[in-house]
């Protein structure tokens, strides 16, 4: 039976909880309620209150407690109920967790899970993609799985990692993405992109839910004779520049796509790296598609206009190939 993206994350956490008694969970409404999205459903019953901790409603407190516990032998997996609330924990993540190893050789092996992304009419405070605030912070790892396979393998790697990992899981994929997962145990390494779809004419560099937007666009483009390669970054920090550059050198055109807003988004970094390192291979400018530079609007026509979609990707792809 296929496993959903949501269930894949749940399985990954569950397996790590079974494997390592130092792994514990903390967050708002994760115990008796099983989490706002039910990622932690059943875990209180299986692992008890000692290891599944319902916290007060205080994100800085949650992140801080995770940091302190991780310095003394534990492996906390903290949940931000919505990634929009991660701002409340910004100082803890950016100034405390990210800098301890560099400053005084103190590892902070925490995972902070952040359900992110729009398309669900969640409005300005339940829809954001805040990854770019954190990709600017040396010392953090930023993971953005698109598939159920990667979601499970990456959450397991994140829990085993000895550095702070921000795990942005896309809410829109929770129940929409279903895959047959291997019955045996596996992990997916942090820091490795993969070619999601092979193609010849252009590279769509993307991650998270936009992998499926790219896939939809690529299918139509194929019928038009345009062969799009899709690179799923999977991890944004540390960035797998080699896989990006190898793809762009092959296709000679690059379209960078993300659901986060455009200005200051991570796409700018990718575009810069391609331009710096593969300029001589390019047959067209590197282009970006991202959400509009506005807060995430609530009402359906506005949110639909705000978000990138397959049609916007196809138009830009055609323009690129005609350049």
């Amino acid at each position, binding site marked *: 039976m296929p496993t959903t993206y949501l269930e894949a994350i749940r399985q990954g956490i569950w397996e790590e909880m079974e494997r390592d008694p130092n792994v514990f969970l903390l967050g708002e409404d994760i115990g008796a309620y099983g989490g706002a999205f039910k990622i932690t459903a059943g875990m209180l019953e299986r692992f008890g209150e000692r290891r599944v901790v319902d916290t007060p409603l205080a994100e800085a407190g949650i992140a801080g407690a995770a940091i*302190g516990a991780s310095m*003394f032998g534990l492996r906390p997996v903290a949940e931000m109920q919505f990634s929009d609330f991660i701002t409340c924990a910004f100082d803890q993540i950016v100034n405390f967790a990210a800098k301890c190893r560099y400053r*005084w050789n103190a590892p902070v092996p925490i995972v902070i899970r952040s359900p992110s992304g729009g398309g669900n009419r969640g409005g300005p405070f339940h829809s954001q993609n805040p990854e770019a605030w954190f990709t600017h912070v040396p010392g953090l790892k930023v993971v953005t799985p698109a598939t159920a396979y990667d979601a499970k393998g990456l959450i397991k790697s994140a829990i085993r990692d000895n550095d702070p990992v921000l795990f942005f899981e896309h809410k829109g994929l929770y129940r929409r993405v279903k895959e047959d997962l291997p019955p045996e145990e596996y992990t997916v390494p942090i820091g490795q992109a993969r070619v999601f779809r092979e193609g010849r004419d252009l590279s769509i560099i993307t991650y998270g839910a936009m992998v499926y937007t790219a896939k939809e666009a690529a299918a139509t483009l194929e019928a038009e004779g345009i062969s799009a390669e899709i690179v799923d970054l999977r991890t944004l920090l*540390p960035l797998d520049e080699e896989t990006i550059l190898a793809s762009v050198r092959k296709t000679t055109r690059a379209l960078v796509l993300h659901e986060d807003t455009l200005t200051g988004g991570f796409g700018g970094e990718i575009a810069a790296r391609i331009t710096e390192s593969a300029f001589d291979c390019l047959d067209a400018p590197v282009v970006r598609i991202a959400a509009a530079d506005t807060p995430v609007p609530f009402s359906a026509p506005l949110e639909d206009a705000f978000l990138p979609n397959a049609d916007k990707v196809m138009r830009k792809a055609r323009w690129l190939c005609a350049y």
Partner: protein
Amino acid sequence: MAATELLALPGASRMLEESPDPNAELAQRFHYYMFLMREVEERIEKKLYRQGKIVGGVYVGRGQEAISTGAAMAADPEDILFPCHRDMAAYFIRGVHPRQVFAQYMGRVGGLTGGRDGNMHMGDLRLKIVAIISAIGAAIPVAAGAAFAQKYQGSSNVTLCFFGDGATSRGDWHEGVNFAAVERLPLVLICNNNQYAYSTPVEKQMACANVADRGPAYGIPAEIVDGNDPFAVYAATQKAAAHARAGLGPYLLECKTFRMTGHAAHDSASYVPQHLFAEWGARDPILRMERLMVEKGWKTREDIDAACLRIRQEVDEAIQWAEQSPFPDPATLLDNVYE
């Protein structure tokens, strides 16, 4: 002025006169660490900083030495410490050598952060000392997390977290205290209320009269302690730690003291009414301790002078060592961002 008068702080514990015979050896150790901290900080602030050998911020705890001394000496060696920037004695008591502190201030390899960070931003996990970040209040939820780990592991140890009055205005201070209270974590919260956060007096920091008043709001016991008396701080910390070790949750100690300097070496503290320095100077914890030692017949003035001389020599050697320690190699810039 007699020791009894000096202790007449409103609400403060009065350990000196209540203890019929405070341990003479304890007094000697208190004096050693307080004087060592004072001497190291004087050299940093008044010599090395002015000579240009130390650049950046210099934050000393002059007049506040009794707090980190009394509290850290009451701690078990396996307890976790979160010292703040005016708590240098806690480092020495836990086993950090003064030469490492000088090297830290001078940005040398021999410092606890090897030049990655400066001044009192230093820690060592092997010694169970966690480094602060500049936003001091941020340490409180982290300390709660350390205490969570202790409870999770079934340890009988506790976490001691130090901070100033200013830190208690921060949201994460409250989030950390609340979480620790709800989870009944073994956390001892030690406020050194020196009455100023940079230039802001405590009455502009909070509307309640005491930091300790905040304890009951979180359902935790709180106590006001004479922060210029290491015996009082020691006894209060023992009591608070026993409470925490017994699984009864956090305990808040407000150690009343006074910052006998500006916020940092560059700050003349012109905004502080000058008579306060004279008043609190008379309550100086080191002078009080020396007077007590002589009054009780534990030491002669000559014994104390000899001990101070030995400390000064120890500090001379520590500075020489630190000045020999190399600066970090720029080629190591990118090391250790990740494992």
